[in-house]
């Protein structure tokens, strides 16, 4: 599983990568996940549904990330703008 974060002026940045089957790597992913949320980021998991349709799920806890997810994308929390 990899964690990507959108970054202004750069595009996405790889912030963490690990194997959930390895407890130490899973702990590191959990810490990285929490750190991003503490920074005010939203976390989304891109999904491929039956039939190949693309979807996404916003997740608020690491436990909600599907175990087989390949990527979690972090992006700044939405706020009223324009």
């Amino acid at each position, binding site marked *: 599983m990899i964690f990507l974060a*959108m970054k202004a002026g750069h595009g*996405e940045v790889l912030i963490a990568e690990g194997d959930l089957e390895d407890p130490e790597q899973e702990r590191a992913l959990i810490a990285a996940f929490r750190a991003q949320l503490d920074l005010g980021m939203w976390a989304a998991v891109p999904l491929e549904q039956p039939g190949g349709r693309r979807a996404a799920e916003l997740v608020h806890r690491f436990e909600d990330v599907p175990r087989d997810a390949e990527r979690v994308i972090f992006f700044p*929390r*939405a*706020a009223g*703008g*324009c």
Partner: protein
Amino acid sequence: MLTLEQLEREQRAEERAARLLRSCINQEEWAMYEAFGLIRVWARAQGSAPASTGSGPTHGYLIYAHKPLVGFLAGSLALVGEFCVAFGGERLPPSDDVLAKWLALRGDERALIASANVDPIGRQTDPARVRRDLERLAGWEAERPR
């Protein structure tokens, strides 16, 4: 005024963002983005076109980079409002802005719309242009092989 180096950096960032966007969205949404610079997202029905009977999505959104989301009704295509959202203090590359809107709409439409400043149509977008975009999309879809 940006320097050449800054322009090149922004171009590289946008290329990276476009690759990420393409890897996340549906093939026809990518084709739509390439053709028109926007993505249409139907609410509730996860990207399927509105059904002619009552079970289809009631509304949809047009996603433009660094512009408000534009909401419209599925049947009549009447424009309902501009939903202004920003992601962080610094400006994301255009395709990252589009992807952030797409992920948030797909993932939690309510949370995104609740965070938005809502304005009447015409505050920041040209209603005539948006209607034209919807018409062009309909024509483009009718011509696309299924």
